[in-house]
């Protein structure tokens, strides 16, 4: 899969896939973002803070975040049955956990922020792409936040530590390490790992993933600025 430091899709070991973010793509949602990274196409939408209509989620002293990660049936090679499954339920939960530390919801007791992530087309790394898009949508919705969370994966393919695994690399590679960070402080808000890594490899992969996050963070900020530049023209 890797020859002379070049990967199957022609990237270098520490190179991201081409990434594009657009802000404010939906009319009805309070905030929204469209993200393409490699072959992934993802739309994130945010509603709220709004009154919590689910009583058991209500907190008397703070607002709560609820996420839903959903794949379109046509987003993958073999049609995915519509509706939630165990994988998307887990991703929904860890996405909420990854975004929550950046949000200042203490000012919104008894309310709820809904984050919806729709995967329109999937090509490896959708959970990271979803978190990256969702955080931009939260900023677009004007929700007070201390940072814009950004996510990226590193992994091991053909014995080499590489950045931002494609679908093929994810399936055939040895390890995958998706993380999310708050770039201002460097704190990690999501960390998963599957596949075998030595301590040294893990440390190298973590550094590489953080480096990837910092690059994507710039694209997030640029996309948010562009929305306001466009509206001024």
């Amino acid at each position, binding site marked *: 899969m890797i020859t002379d430091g070049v990967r199957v899709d022609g990237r270098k070991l520490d190179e991201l896939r081409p990434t594009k973010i657009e802000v404010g793509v939906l009319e009805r949602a309070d905030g929204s973002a469209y993200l393409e990274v490699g072959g992934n*196409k993802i739309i994130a939408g945010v*509603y709220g803070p709004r009154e919590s209509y689910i009583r058991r989620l209500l907190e008397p002293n703070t607002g709560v975040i609820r996420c839903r990660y959903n794949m379109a*049936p*046509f987003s993958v090679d*073999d*049609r995915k049955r*519509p509706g939630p499954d165990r994988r998307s339920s887990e991703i929904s939960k860890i996405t909420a956990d990854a975004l929550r530390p950046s949000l200042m919801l203490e000012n919104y007791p008894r309310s709820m922020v*809904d984050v919806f992530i*729709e995967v329109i087309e999937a090509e490896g790394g959708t959970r990271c792409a979803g978190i990256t898009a969702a955080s931009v949508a939260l900023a677009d919705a004007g929700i007070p936040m201390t940072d814009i969370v950004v996510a990226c994966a590193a992994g091991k393919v053909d014995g080499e530590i590489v950045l931002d695994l494609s679908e093929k690399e994810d399936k055939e590679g040895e390890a995958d390490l998706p993380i999310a960070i708050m770039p201002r402080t460097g704190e990690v808000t999501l960390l998963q790992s599957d596949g075998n890594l030595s301590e040294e490899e893990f440390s190298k992969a973590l550094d590489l993933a953080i480096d990837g996050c910092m690059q994507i963070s710039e694209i997030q900020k640029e996309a948010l600025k562009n929305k306001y530049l466009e509206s001024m023209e």
Partner: protein
Amino acid sequence: MKIIPEITKESIKDLIGNNQREDGRTIDQYRDISIETDIISKAEGSAKVKIGGTKVIAGIKLQVGAPYPDNPNLGVLMTNCEMVPIADPTFEVGPPNEESIELARVVDRGIRESKMVDLEKLCVEEGNHVWMIFIDLHVLDNCGNLFDACELAVTAALNSTKLPTASIGDDGLVIDKENTFDLPLNEKVVMSTFVKIGSEMVIDPSLMEEDVSDGRLNIGVTEKGLVCSMQKGGMGPLNKKEILDCVNIAISKSSELLNLIK
């Protein structure tokens, strides 16, 4: 439950009484429509349709499966619609509700009854293997008139669908994804939706107009100008003249809509 102020209802009704609408259209005018096809490379066919602010994506997935016993030589068509909660603050997470089932079934009826897809040509081996066409609709932004947007998206997506070659070899079924051909289609179909506001029937309702309307009428029209499917929705009744007038307008609008599908 959405609450509509009386003053909004009255002002929309007054406008329509004067052949005007809240967004400046006449009562028989569509909002701007755009269609993009082949937007999902993992789907065999796909299209994104915008009507004003309404956005929907249709994706077509193909599988070879067993035919229904009563039609052993016909391909199978299935339409499903997800009104995902990203599209509207009132849409909720969960299994399809009555609205999204009605939407999917009305769209499906237009495609099925117009015989748009030539199901006989989708037979690989009679009684054992036929192509199954999964039509999945993903509503992304609900600004009114999902019916016409969905029907247009499905027609455009089917029109762009590439079917792999399937045959029966010595070891059973062989699918050749390299050699594809266009999905065999007969006449295309489009839909026009009207809502009744006051005493007028208004085409392509905006969300606000849907909210204040008393009744709804969907009319599917084929390329030859035949009415192939209809559905009345909403609580209010319609009279015979209103229905006939809508049929007349739907037929005359159909060529305008069909021209948008390349």
